[in-house]
């Protein structure tokens, strides 16, 4: 009797285990089926090309060349000697520093003014200031090319009105000015982007904190530094990283405004990659620049992911 019961139980458990295992397998199968399309596209059109880039950076090769020649780290050695590459890198750095200072600085101030400084028109100011963000960089670039034009553009009208003589070679023609002319456009387009994200962060700050600060006798400026900024610290770090990644990736606006000119004065890594690969047929060399760009972008990307996966401290 007892053995019989035991065997029965054993069989039931075995059957239940088998059933559970089958269900689990079934769930695995479904999960892989759901993930497969996204993963496949990702592997074929991002990961495989990425590995190819690293591989191709070791070759002397052009897109129209029939053969490729292995040269080890030759492309990277050449990069070290290439004044244009260093110029491009320095331009990316300039864009990065100025973008963070202006876009994040101004974006935070504007957001604070909209959040705490005005009673009516909050959404009007937000909508208007964000509008340039949705425009294509190509349209923005061409528009600003016209604005910078010495004959009819707005830029000359404007500086003459405040008593400054516009640059004789044009805003985009002077090698010392061009990168800042590009930066004006980038800041015009993207400050609203930072503002909107920061504003959303500010609107979730608890009103009680402001009331407590008011009881302590804090004025609006003091509240900004003692309540607002500490409460949205993570949001500010996030927008700084997003802005930095944007500055490293920049391409469209520079390509449209200047093609990297005059005389490479506004070249950035993105445009220099394009120039080498598709204009002078040096795809191997372009791949080496891509590897440098990739390394920088991945470092910034990992920083951002670590930040976003961290539990948030603000409620």
């Amino acid at each position: 009797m007892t053995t019989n019961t035991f065997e029965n139980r054993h069989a039931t458990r075995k059957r239940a285990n088998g059933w559970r295992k089958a269900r689990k397998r079934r769930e695995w199968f479904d999960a892989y089926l759901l993930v497969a399309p996204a993963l496949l596209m990702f592997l074929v059109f991002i990961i495989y090309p990425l590995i190819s880039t690293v591989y191709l950076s070791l070759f002397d090769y052009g897109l129209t060349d029939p053969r490729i020649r292995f040269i080890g780290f030759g492309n990277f050695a050449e990069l070290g000697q290439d004044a244009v590459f260093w110029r491009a890198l320095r331009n990316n750095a300039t864009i990065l520093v100025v973008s963070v200072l202006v876009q994040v600085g101004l974006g935070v101030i504007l957001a604070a003014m909209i959040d705490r400084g005005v009673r009516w028109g909050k959404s009007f100011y937000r909508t208007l200031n964000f509008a340039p963000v949705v425009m294509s960089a190509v349209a923005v670039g061409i528009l600003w090319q016209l604005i910078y034009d010495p004959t009819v553009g707005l830029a000359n009208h404007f500086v003459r009105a405040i008593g400054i003589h516009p640059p004789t070679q044009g805003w985009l023609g002077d090698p010392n000015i061009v990168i800042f002319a590009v930066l004006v456009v980038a800041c015009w387009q993207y400050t609203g982007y930072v503002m909107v994200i920061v504003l959303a962060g500010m609107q979730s700050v608890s009103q009680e904190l402001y009331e407590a600060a008011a009881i302590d006798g804090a004025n609006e400026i003091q509240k900004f530094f003692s309540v607002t900024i500490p409460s949205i610290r993570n949001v500010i770090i996030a927008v700084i990283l997003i802005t930095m990644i944007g500055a490293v990736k920049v391409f469209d606006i520079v390509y449209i405004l200047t093609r990297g000119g005059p005389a490479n004065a506004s070249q950035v890594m993105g445009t220099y990659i394009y120039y080498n690969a598709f204009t002078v047929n040096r795809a191997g060399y372009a791949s080496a620049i891509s590897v440098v760009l990739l390394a920088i972008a991945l470092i910034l990307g990992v920083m951002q992911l670590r930040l976003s996966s961290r539990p948030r401290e603000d409620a």
Partner: protein
Amino acid sequence: MKLRPLQLLVYALLTLYSIAVALPIVWMFLSSTKTVRELFSFPFALPAQPQWGNFAKAWDSGISHYLVNSLFVTTVSVCLIVLFSALAAYALARLNFPGRVPIFLLLIAGFAIPVHTVLVPLYRSLNGMGLLNTYAGLIAPYVAFGIPFSVLLLYAFFLEFPPEIEDAARIDGCSTLPMVFKIVMPLSMPALVSVTVFQSVFLWNEFSLALIVIRDDALRTIPLGLTKFQGQWSTNWTLMLASLSMATLPVLLLYIVLQKQFIRSLVGFSK
């Protein structure tokens, strides 16, 4: 906040900045209705007679084709991005399977990869597959590059999806795939709309990939078409401005109508 002068100052500063943001856009629309001669007078004077002909001419010179191309490429790409990303994000957030974490990390790491780092091999691959200079050659990389961001956003959404709904469906004998399509997806519309709006604006404006993939004038998307005019109409300003206006108007309208969804996806992205 009770200090009236301070509030007035804030209003003044905000308005001043907003004017600076709006001026180039206003100038673009206003100038596109002028004659070339009027353009050389005061920049913000109204035209004597609005030149709607500028728009008609730009429309006939190719803008109409480019708009249709952009609409087609954007629509197909966004549908595929949303479908693939939603399915993957659901599995990653709600199902248990070996390799879940590595696959998730791999997919979202992709969003740090600048498209310019893969232009050369992508050009080679597309060439090898015979997809260079085709719609498919543009749509395929668009879908791939849209996935990381969309998966990240939808993953966060599905993590908070109420499990009671799934349990109820399972008790009714519904298996995973029908449940995902018939119950989970319809209930996830707000999140899917956010992703759709964001990706639509992004792809409508995409330029770098279009620049290397598309050669035929007949296949150009709007940003690529504008660069053709940039060379062609460097002296015919009013036509150029009319084209810019027509290229910009659809996204501006979409943004004004759906700005809540758009901003929600951006904010989710920065968390």
